[in-house]
């Protein structure tokens, strides 16, 4: 029996023998080409980082640029400010979008395209146009917000909440799709829960994972955002980096690497949180 199988194998090899080597060679060539493309891509990705790292190490004594950076009180205050703004943005964005997305899914499914369109508007109205409009509208009565620091902070947060719409909404909506909101709603209402209890204690905990990935992305974008912060004259991290890049030689390189690290950390957290779920594509519009 075994002999029979071997014989058939040999026969098969004889029959297909003239094809296999060429196919294998073609496949090998393709793999080699793929490696070349990949290495080129990685080189393009890493060279600017290497350049920045080397530049930051040029200052003597060794690591002096980093020592300066750590001693600079402004970097800490700008980072703290950026993170605070980021957290407020995320909280407001969740407070606004979770009830909206929930309501649309439960009661107004026909409005879904409309809401989706609205959440995509930040892509149509780029940050520069948004801040242009904000400053034009709110630098005069009845709402002269740009005159005070608090007013500008409020404008900044509002602008960022709008920027966060596309990915926050998509994250929340994707989360809502995976849970049976109708049953959950009926169950909690039959137990006497009101709408606030329902959203706060039932829906929100179920959405934790999907909200987190949207939140980290929002945080990364807010901390790195420059255009809006610059024109509203807010002491954000990116405006600080722009400021020192004009005055100092080596420290900006160190800070740029830190900024890259923040992006990296946010992406890593998203990957960690979203393990098992599909990778999502995001249009950030913060370039």
């Amino acid at each position, binding site marked *: 029996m075994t002999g029979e199988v071997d014989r058939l194998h040999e026969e098969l090899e004889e029959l297909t023998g003239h094809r296999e080597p060429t196919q294998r060679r073609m496949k090998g060539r393709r793999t080699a080409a793929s490696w070349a493309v990949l290495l080129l891509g990685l080189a*393009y990705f890493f060279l600017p980082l290497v350049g920045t790292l080397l530049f930051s190490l040029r200052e003597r004594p060794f690591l002096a640029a980093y020592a300066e950076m750590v001693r600079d009180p402004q970097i800490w205050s700008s980072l703290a400010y950026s993170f605070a703004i980021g957290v407020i943005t995320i909280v407001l964005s969740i407070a606004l979008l979770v009830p909206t997305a929930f309501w649309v899914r439960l009661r107004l499914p026909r409005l879904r395209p409309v809401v989706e369109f609205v959440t995509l508007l930040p892509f149509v109205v780029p940050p520069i146009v948004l801040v242009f409009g904000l400053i034009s509208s709110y630098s005069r009565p009845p709402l002269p917000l740009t005159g005070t620091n608090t007013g500008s902070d409020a404008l900044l947060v509002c602008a960022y909440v709008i920027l966060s719409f596309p990915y926050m909404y998509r994250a929340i909506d994707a989360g809502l799709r995976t849970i049976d909101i109708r049953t959950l709603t009926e169950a909690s209402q039959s137990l006497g829960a009101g709408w606030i209890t329902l959203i706060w204690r039932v829906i929100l905990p179920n959405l934790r994972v999907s909200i987190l990935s949207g939140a980290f992305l929002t945080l990364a974008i807010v901390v790195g955002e420059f255009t809006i912060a610059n024109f509203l004259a807010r002491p954000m991290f990116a405006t600080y980096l722009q400021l020192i890049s004009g005055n100092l030689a080596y420290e900006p390189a160190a800070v740029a690497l830190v*900024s890259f690290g923040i992006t990296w950390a946010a992406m890593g957290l*998203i990957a960690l949180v979203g393990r098992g779920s599909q990778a999502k594509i995001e249009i950030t519009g913060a370039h």
Partner: protein
Amino acid sequence: MFLVIPTSYLVVGSFRDQAGHFTLQNYADLTRPITANAYQASIEISLVTAILGGVLGFGLAYAVISGGLPGPLRTVVMTFSGVASNFAGVPLALAFIFTIGRTGFISVLLNDVLGWNIYGSGFTIYSKLGLEIVYLYFQLPLMVLIIAPAIDGLKKEWREASENAGASTFQYWRHIALPILMPSLLGSMILLFGNSFGAQATAFALTGGFIPLVTILIGGQLSGDVLGNQNLGYALAMGMVAIMGVTLVAYSWLSRRAERWQR
């Protein structure tokens, strides 16, 4: 409220003259050299980076997904792409200045090792070409991210079937893979176009307003009324919104067509 009011303010403002009367003059004035040049520069840079980023990004994505590379590399490249496509603005501009700026390490390396002074031969990072190189840093990975699902949708069986039917690699691409991928490819490139069209921070940080993009011009108008007419600035911004709107509509139409093959 913070999106609609400012936008409608711009819309209304763009139809008014400086005395507050209704006019279409602002839109007619967009053809003046300063604004027309800005649109031209913006469109040119966006087109170049969208097409280059699209083609190269597709190549990279295809190499990683169907190029016979070890599986884990795909995750690595996807994660890198996620980071790089979100790494933009001031730090990105700085990173490139440190790398191929006048004293950047690649410029120095080329000069010392090959004796080739790229700045002597007319190149500068503070130019359109420089800006395009920098933009590609987030355009290319974005392409990798958005085209990956479409490449996943290319079924192995189609390739095998075409090979069995005697088709060459070229015929496979010409008659099967490209027609299927075309809506996704076009849609993705349109998205890249919009992505770079709306970019302001990177260009501003890199050139400080030296290259007159639409976004830079709007920024200049915001900080110092460079156009000398606030309402023309509104019209400029509206033109930009219109272009972004068209790209978004085209993108969603194409991505709906692309979905046919991704079930």
